């Protein structure tokens, strides 16, 4: 009996080692360990064994089964690994073949620039608001300290609908509308479309965009204006950007300033981009004129504030080095895809 088992085991080992595939190995398992397998046959023959020998034989049979099973499992793992390796080798692809893209669209450069600006100011606690594009003369001019017949009305080349209604020439009327709501303090930016009767060329468009900013609170100072815009310029154009405030005149702010930033192309050394000056003008700003505050129902003795206006196209053209403003309104797919 013992010899029989040894023989079965040796035979099984040979068969297992000769298995060259998982299917074959399975056949071997069935042949030796299956219900009709050889080892099972031995167990079935137990009835012929003397009762006192049965435990010994049973143990022998189990040992044999275990060692065969172990060997089968080991061999199976080996064969599986070999098969996976083979499959992986067969599945090699050309990774340089073209990508399958979900052809996503692109935002307009104006929008990309605007979102950058919006994110900077939202981070500083500003709300983004809007106002009408077709606007009352009152909001566009009068409430901004530009009375009837003020030369500034001519300077801005206004499109008129009638005597009282204009296409807004600036986003500043949104300031007035926000102030009139009477909710203080105010920290807002107001992006939007504005209109001036300029003929279309590489640097002019009768329709363009501005971003207005307004802060009204107690104790707001010109120093706050400087600090805010310096921070804005750094965020938008890079950490090393410096700003320069030059006195200027706007009817709705006093004191007023124009702001230059160091040329982000040359860092201020002077280049073709900044026409050799090292500086690029980017916005106008100032402390809200007390008369404007008063007209909007805010007491200038108690509150002060600052306002600024940025040309969105100016930022977009500068930042993305677009050399012709007309490109922004042609909507050529080959242009838009670059953003």
């Amino acid at each position, binding site marked *: 009996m013992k010899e029989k088992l040894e023989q079965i085991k040796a035979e099984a080992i040979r068969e297992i080692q000769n298995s060259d595939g998982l299917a074959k190995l399975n056949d071997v398992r069935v042949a030796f360990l299956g219900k009709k397998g050889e080892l099972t046959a031995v167990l079935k023959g137990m009835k012929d064994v003397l009762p006192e020998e049965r435990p010994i034989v049973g143990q022998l049979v189990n040992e044999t089964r275990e060692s065969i099973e172990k060997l089968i499992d080991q061999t199976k793992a080996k064969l599986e690994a070999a098969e996976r390796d083979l499959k992986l080798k067969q599945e090699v692809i050309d990774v340089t073949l073209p990508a399958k893209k979900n052809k996503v*669209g692109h935002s307009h450069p104006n929008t990309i620039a605007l979102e950058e600006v919006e994110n900077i100011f939202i981070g500083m*606690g500003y709300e983004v608001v809007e106002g009408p594009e077709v606007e009352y003369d009152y909001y566009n001019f009068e409430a901004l300290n530009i009375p009837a017949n003020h030369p500034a009305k001519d300077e801005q080349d206004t499109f008129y609908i009638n005597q009282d209604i204009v296409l807004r020439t600036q986003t500043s009327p949104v300031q007035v509308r926000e102030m009139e709501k009477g909710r203080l303090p105010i*920290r807002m930016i107001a992006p939007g479309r504005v209109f001036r009767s300029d003929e279309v060329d590489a640097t002019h468009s*009768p329709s363009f965009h501005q971003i207005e900013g307004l802060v009204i609170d107690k104790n707001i100072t*010109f120093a706050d204006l400087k600090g805010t815009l310096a921070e804005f310029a750094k965020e938008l154009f890079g950490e090393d950007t410096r700003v320069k*405030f030059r*006195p200027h005149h706007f009817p709705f702010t006093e004191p007023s*300033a124009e702001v230059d930033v160091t040329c982000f192309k040359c860092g201020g050394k002077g280049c073709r981009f900044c026409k050799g000056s090292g500086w690029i003008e980017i916005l106008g700003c100032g402390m809200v004129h007390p008369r404007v505050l008063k007209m909007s129902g805010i007491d200038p003795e108690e509150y002060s504030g600052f306002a600024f206006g940025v040309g969105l196209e100016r930022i977009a053209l500068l930042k993305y080095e677009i050399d012709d403003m007309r490109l922004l309104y042609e909507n050529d797919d080959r242009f838009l895809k670059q953003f």
Partner: protein
Amino acid sequence: MNTSLSWIKAYVPELDVTAQEYTDAMTLSGSKVEGFEKLDADLENIVVGQISKIEKHPDADKLVVCQVNVGSGEEIQIVTGAPNVKEGQKVPVVLDGGRVAGGHDGKKTPGGIKIKKGKLRGVPSNGMMCSIEELGSTREMYPESPENGIYIFEDDVTVGESAIKVLGLDDVVFEYEITSNRVDCFGVLGLAREAAATFGKEFKPPVVTETGNSEDVNDYIKVTVEDTELCPRYCARVVKNIKIAPSPKWMQRRLAAQGIRPINNIVDITNYVMEEYGQPMHAYDLDTIAGKEIVVRRADKGEKFVTLDGQERTMDDSVLMICDGEKAVGIAGIMGGENSMITDNVQTMLFEAACFDGTNIRLSSKKVGLRTDASGKFEKGLDPNNAIDAINRACQLIEELGAGEVVGGVVDVYGKVKEGRRIPFDDKKVNCLLGTEISKEDMIAYFKKIDLGYDEEKEEVIVPSWRQDLECLADMAEEVARFYGYDNIPTSLPSGEATTGKLSFKLRVEKVARDTAEFCGFSQGMSYSFESPKVFDKLLIPQDSDLRQTVVISNPLGEDFSIMRTISLNGMLTSLATNYNRRNKNVRLYELGNIYLPKQVPVTELPEERMQFTLGLYGDGDFYTMKGVVEEFFDKAGLHGKETYDPEAGKPFLHPGRQANIVYEGEIVGYLGEIHPQVADNYSIKERVYVAVIDMPMIVSMANFDRKYQGIARFPAVSRDISMVMPKNILVGEVEKVFDTKGGQYLESYELFDLYEGAQIKSGFKSVAYSLTFRAKDKTLEEADYAPAMNKILKSLEEMGIELRK
């Protein structure tokens, strides 16, 4: 506004700065210098030479050989082809290695032209004699220059001296951007005052002396101002025995540097004082003034008048005229008349320095269609107190230059005298506004520099009348700030109550629209808000359509930009056409922009501005691609209900069989469809174009960013297919409606999986197959649970005339 540095220095003698230093400092103190031109930038090594000998060139008929004394006894030989040189003449000579600005044809060479020793037809030439053009200027500015050839100096110049200096070309001309509030800086004196204050030097304006003979001007002329509103001040003086002659070189040079052509002494003095004081003046030939009187009155409506440029112009009754006893002799502040202009034969002249209402001059100038240097200055609103100084200064120059005999006295019609303002001053408030700690003494010192007084007792700043822009304490803060230096003001961030930064809800929904469009392959375009009324014809919009009721621009850039759009499609189709025309393939664009719907025509209140989300494509994609984008957007915007589509949209610009209104919760929120081939043709697009237009205010009102977790189904679903044959005119939307209404509580979803028309299906019919999924949240469904709903659905379908296939 331009000034030369030398003219500024005439009033700020201690000023010693480079052009760049001047530019930077003036800009930072508020007089923005846009740029400067060094007149001698391209001139080098040019001296006054005297021709001692001229001989014929041995080998060239048109050339001569000159010996020229260039100072310190040195004589050099120069060969020239100039026709006008004579022995003994003094001429500008550029020496070997020097540079001139350009050719004698007036064309300038950037960087100049270097002159070197050489031979001309074999004869050595060691320099060049120059024409005024080669020196970078023109005969207009140097009228004494010969028409052709070398510039000839007057005899009194010193040989060997710098010719650049003698000609006044050692100067810099600054171009300023003066803001409209600083009327005083439209004159050299105003800018000189600013320069003196900026650099801390003394300002020395000209001392205007008493002028005039013992006669009385009132014996010569009487002035009546009928409209003192429009003419607050009128000063007149008389000059007799006029001797017209060229003005002196120093005056000519200063005018030339400003870009003003010297003409003769009288004209030049007028221009000179206009530049100096910013006060325009006018001279009339007194012998043409009828009745020896001047009347300032409004024109008659339709009055015709010939200005001194010979043009006849038509007035209306708002235009102010200068008249004599019989007729008009000038349009006030704009241009004098041909009938009274100064000629070379003038004997006696009437000098006028007046102050006119700025707004009226601006409007009149527009009406008459004539803008002059004078009107440009008047329209800014001049200081009436300046007029008398200017006219007296002009008379002083007339006497000094010997241009005529000034008659004693001034006729001065001046109603209400304009006084300077007094502004209550509080240094603490100024520091509060600026965020600075500047001492009161420093502030008052800044004021003194620009001739603002301070009343210690009343604590008031005394503002001279020429600073009409200074009205309140904020203005004073700016004066302090610009002399303290904007750069020196510290930087800080606003303190106080924290605020929340955010986008408005509307802008958030727009952002979702943009993101969805871009994920779906659409790029963002932008088009103009105004367009041509012809657009409606292009879009086949009927004559009586409300869309043709528009907001009309009264002063458009042209018909193409004359109405505010009431429909967003023209911009989209124009952009697609541009792409198509440029052979771009498979283009997908979207735009977020307003349309403008008037509440009434003509417009009396603001129109309704409605944001439209417009999508357009040609190439890859069709009606259902568009529909997909619309539904993706609705889903992302929190419109989780079911959109329905009504094919009876009635849009004339869309294909009649391929269009639909988009309906959500019973409201039309937009439309989509294929562009009508006729419209596509009108835009020259020879492909099928699909568009969708979504009305954003509707979407914003329904959008919702709240999300609630519904749980994930844990029990298995049951799927049942329905296969149908139905007449073509039944829309699958009607079938889906049956599912929606009869599906019962367990119908989770349905999906179209087959649609077929053609062979095997009888003509006029289509085969449609849906898969329905039933599921319960709380149990495994058994047939008894969903069978009733299934039966109801099948029954309804059959009632619609749909044949069910088993």
